[in-house]
């Protein structure tokens, strides 16, 4: 069983679980930019929650299936045609040998996940199947997929009864996002009124956005000693602010250390949303305490685990 890519679009990669525990060697996580949508896609075809799937950025995308199988689509709601018929997201989709899947770019969200019964077969590199493009490792030869690429699919489990994601568990997709944050390590170097502006402003996601992070446009923040900083650990979800006052929200491919002020940190239960921010979207930040964040995380995981089984959010 295989998938033949006919058109890879802007950036399609194989992504699964993060590459955990190597940040001290400078190795970023990689993995699905929206890990929740990956888990939901895998659930619909009976895969393990973080089995490697295709992450399709903006689209368009076209592929052909060599054999009968089951697939599912989650994340950014691209319109989808399979074998000439339209198919919907958040449902198990039966595929007939030779079927062609055509995805058309969506207006909301950034990344669509395509899971296949059995999961995409790629070798693990440093413990993970996920693609890290800047270093060209993991996934399918460490690169984006293009026309002609043939992806092997793991021997599939018995056919699943068609499923659909409960509506209440389908993640928000839109143009206006609220991300909850805790104060970052150098939050104290944002001058008081500027911190309030950081929280009350509507920030626009710039075109300078990718899996590493998103530049946020708005009234520049006022900082003290902005250029004085020893390189310090950063993570997906860290909001950094360079001396020019324009914050930068780090994504799943975030570097491991950085030298700009770490003013805030998006909380764990909200981090999967970062992977769906697209240029032009607006973001507001809402401050919570670590204790409040843990309560949100606990509630979210308990709700999700009824559908997904054991859930890991990061």
């Amino acid at each position, binding site marked *: 069983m295989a998938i033949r890519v006919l058109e890879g679009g802007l950036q399609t990669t194989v992504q699964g679980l993060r590459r*955990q*525990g190597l*940040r*001290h*060697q*400078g*190795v*970023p996580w990689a993995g699905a930019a929206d890990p929740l949508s990956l888990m939901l896609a895998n659930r619909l075809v009976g895969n393990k929650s973080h089995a490697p799937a295709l992450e399709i950025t903006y689209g368009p995308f076209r592929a052909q299936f060599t054999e009968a199988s089951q697939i599912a689509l989650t994340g950014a709601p691209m319109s989808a045609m399979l074998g000439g018929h339209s198919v919907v997201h958040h449902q198990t989709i039966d595929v007939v040998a030779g079927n062609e899947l055509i995805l058309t770019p969506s207006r909301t969200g950034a990344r669509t996940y395509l899971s296949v019964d059995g999961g995409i077969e790629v070798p693990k*590199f440093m413990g993970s199947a996920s693609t*890290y493009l*800047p*270093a*060209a*490792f993991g996934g399918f030869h*460490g690169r984006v997929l293009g026309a002609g690429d043939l992806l092997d699919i793991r021997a599939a489990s018995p056919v699943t009864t068609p499923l659909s994601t409960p509506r209440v568990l389908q993640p928000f997709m839109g143009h206006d996002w609220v991300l909850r944050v*805790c104060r*970052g*390590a150098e939050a104290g170097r944002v001058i008081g009124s500027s911190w309030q502006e950081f929280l009350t402003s509507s920030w626009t996601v710039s075109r*300078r956005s990718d899996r*590493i992070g998103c530049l946020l446009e708005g009234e520049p923040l006022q900082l003290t000693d902005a*250029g*004085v900083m*020893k*390189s*310090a*650990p950063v*993570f997906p*979800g*860290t909001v950094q602010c*360079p*001396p*020019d006052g324009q914050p930068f929200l780090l994504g799943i491919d975030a*570097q*491991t*250390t*950085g*030298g*700009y002020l*770490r003013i805030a*940190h998006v*909380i*764990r239960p909200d981090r999967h949303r970062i992977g769906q921010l697209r240029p032009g979207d607006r973001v507001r930040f809402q401050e*919570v305490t*670590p*204790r409040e*964040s*843990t309560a949100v*995380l*606990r509630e979210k*995981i308990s709700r999700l685990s009824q559908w997904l089984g054991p859930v890991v959010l*990061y």
Partner: protein
Amino acid sequence: MNPGQTSMPDDEGNLPTECELIADDTVSVRVYDVTEAHHLAATLRAEGSWEEVVPGLGSVAVMFDPLMLDKEEALLQVRKAIETQSGAIVQGPKTVTIPVSYGGNMGPDLEAVSSLLGLSTDDFIGLHTAHRHTVEMIGFAPGFAYIGGFGEAADVRRLERPRMRVEAGSVGVVGGRTGLYALSGPGGWPIVGRTDVRLFDPSKEEPFLLSPGDRIQFQAV
């Protein structure tokens, strides 16, 4: 860390603090210097209960799963590690020669950095290649080496606006340190030159060329 050290200010005049939460799932410990950062990180990593233990130049960040460990417990465990740490970094330092093409397209910021320091570009290259430097940390990106030992460049700061793309092998200078970019990618260090030595080679069993403690000799080509 000796208890006595914790009250000594570091080179930025800050008093080292114990530890604090810097996110809902991350504890940061300020340390006296990079050596202490690596000792503490090695001790914490040996415990095996953390998602990530990442040393920086003046701190160590420890990420935990808030559902497995609440924040008070996490802080307590980190404090315990600070008190009991005995771990040493055991890696034989080696000496590595790094040939560098300074200036021009390879080092677009060489002139600006030299003039900031009141040096000719030749004097800058002379100083940079005369020193023996030491790798303090691998981080920021796979194989990116933070290399200490260029005190003359203490006043050089990061670019106001980071570049979206810095070429692999680029040699940057900031705050008395040299940085080697193993991969092409975004970066904020002023770039003075470039080397063709591969700092990260995923096909090798030991993909990282440099380790903390290694001695570096730069050579102009």
